[in-house]
């Protein structure tokens, strides 16, 4: 998987759906898997793949909780994930010249 460049641009995060996932998770403490899926308008399997990619890089953490015999998955950015996302956003701003 491509590595983060020196200016913080991260090709893993930059993929459109993963950028949105990181943006959502950076805004709050945790988001439920179904809520992310609903906002992104993708299938569960597509979202799972993106989540796996981010987890493999150590950017995302998932917590499973069983409630009313239904398993819920909650997603959150790790400390490294927040730092990587914010660096990536800073790199994008640099590119726009803003």
């Amino acid at each position, binding site marked *: 998987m491509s590595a983060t460049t020196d200016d913080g641009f991260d090709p893993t995060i930059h993929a459109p759906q993963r950028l949105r996932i990181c*943006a959502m998770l950076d805004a709050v403490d945790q*988001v439920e898997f179904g809520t992310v899926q609903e906002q992104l308008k993708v299938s569960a399997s597509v979202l799972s793949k993106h989540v796996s990619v981010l987890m493999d890089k150590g950017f995302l953490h998932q917590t499973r909780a069983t409630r009313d015999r239904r398993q819920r998955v909650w997603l959150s950015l790790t400390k490294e994930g927040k730092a990587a996302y914010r660096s990536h956003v800073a790199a994008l701003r640099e590119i726009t010249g803003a």
Partner: protein
Amino acid sequence: METEPTTPRPTPEEAAAALREAESAQESTRAVKVPAWYYPVLGLIIAPYGLLFVIPHEGWWLAAYLLGLVAFLTATVVLMRVGVNQMGVLRWLTPRELRPIAVWSLFPIIGGIGLYLVHGTPWAWVATTAGLGVAIGLFGPYHRRTSPYYQTSGNR
């Protein structure tokens, strides 16, 4: 599936579009409202807490006191879990959003302290938590109307 074996760097226009998408995703996540019932129920849970100060801590009353404490803690935890599960988002309110309730809470707290200092009665704390319960119950609709994160179109 998006892959990035050799992800080209975006142009300034593409970077700006990506930033707008990220901003929009953040706005829609922060815009998830606390359920309308949440703060009124929290207020109802907190309001009777002061009774624990007037219950004698001896004999069977001690059991009632401990039961009351457990009930309060359990109700608070259950409320939070149900509320967060309904929202699908866990977001702590910002200091700016909490400022109104912090200010409103001063009135029953200072009033209760004053009442206790003047009369020395533990019923002052019953009045304090009842007042806090009312403040928290009223904070809910105020917060839903005024939070800057909810002032976007299509928020739920």
